[in-house]
């Protein structure tokens, strides 16, 4: 299989159709990333295509071998950020596509278990800042090394780690609040039933 660097060199030497291989290679990853950033399907499709078009126009600027993926994420992340700012979203909602599982359809128990997990994570992620969310998605979902996350978010390596730390901590606190509220609700419900 040809590397990203080899394909880019071929595109730049006139075999332009080779760019299609790069699109096929990365479109699913970029789609998942954008959906998890809180965009819906249509917004994601638009931003993903624009990201590839922008990447193609500026392909000559990718010099470092192996940096195409990182660069593509950067373009997609910036476009998503600009879009989210344009529509003035505050407290980004996780779109349903990000949280729906294929195997859950035929398994009610799994639905209950996973939905509970998703509810917790959804509520916790809503509380994150835009940059915290970006770092969490890139690291925890996309499994990118911190170095790449730092490049994509234009932060220092230690800055990314501190952001990740604070994001996880904030999420953990959100989980606890949710658990406490659930217990409180259960207790109140029990008291009401007894008094009735």
């Amino acid at each position, binding site marked *: 299989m040809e590397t990203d660097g080899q394909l880019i060199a071929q*595109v730049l*030497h*006139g*075999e*332009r*159709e080779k*760019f*299609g291989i790069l*699109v*096929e290679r990365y*479109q*699913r990853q970029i*789609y*998942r990333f954008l*959906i998890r950033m809180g965009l819906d*399907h249509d917004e994601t*499709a638009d931003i*993903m*295509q624009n990201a*590839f*078009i922008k990447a*193609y*126009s500026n392909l000559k600027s990718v010099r470092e071998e192996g940096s195409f993926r990182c660069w593509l994420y950067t373009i997609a992340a910036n476009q998503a950020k600009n879009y989210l700012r344009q529509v003035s979203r505050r407290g980004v909602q996780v779109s349903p*596509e*990000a*949280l*729906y*599982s*294929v*195997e*859950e359809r035929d398994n009610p128990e799994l639905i209950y278990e*996973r939905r509970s*997990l*998703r509810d*917790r*994570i959804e509520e*916790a992620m809503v509380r994150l800042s835009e940059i915290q969310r970006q770092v*969490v998605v890139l*690291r*925890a*979902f996309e*499994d990118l090394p*911190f170095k790449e996350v730092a490049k994509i978010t234009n932060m220092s390596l*230690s800055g990314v*780690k*501190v952001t*990740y*730390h*604070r*994001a*996880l*901590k904030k*999420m*953990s*606190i959100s*989980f606890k609040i949710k658990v406490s509220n659930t217990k409180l609700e259960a207790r109140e419900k029990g008291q009401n039933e007894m008094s009735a």
Partner: protein
Amino acid sequence: MKCPLDESLLVDYLEGELEATASSMVSEHLKSCPVCRTEYEALLEAREALRAMRESKTEEPPESFWQESLQAVAQATYRRRVDSSLGKVIKFPYLKPKFLAAAAVVMMALAGTLKWGLFTGRSVRSPETVVQAVSPANNIALEDSLYLLTRAIYQCDLAAMALESIGELEAGDTSGIPSAGMVFPVGRSVYEGLLDLKDNEIDNVMVLLASL
């Protein structure tokens, strides 16, 4: 005593990015420091929840979506017709013999169209038709170049047909025949199309030109 674990170090430990010695030092510290241990457990809980969610397969769009998306990107990028090339600045020519030969053939084809195309009475094929008919192995660079080339010939043919139809030629008025000034930008767009081609593709262009 001030705790030695900063946020960055704890994250490195959490993600398994520390070397063995540093990792065991952090482990030891966590055993003896309830503050750091609580902090670590909080991070671990959040990270595990995220991992569990990552493992559950996310619903993806149908296969047709990826194909359509690829097509949309292709149309906007590497399959885009080079219509704007007329406005580009002319680059210094490549002096490869094959390129010069191809350029000469192109120019001869253009000149031939101008000089004799008017009287041949052959039907004019649109650039799209030619490209579609000869599209070799989905080679976009070659298609683009052929498109430019046939467009140039097509424009000359159309001009000739238009002149013929209004009877100017019969009246002996040849002032409407495409001038060198008009042909130049057309030739330039062909020339720029050729610049994108590799040697074997230039060969193909020459073969195809002969069949036009």
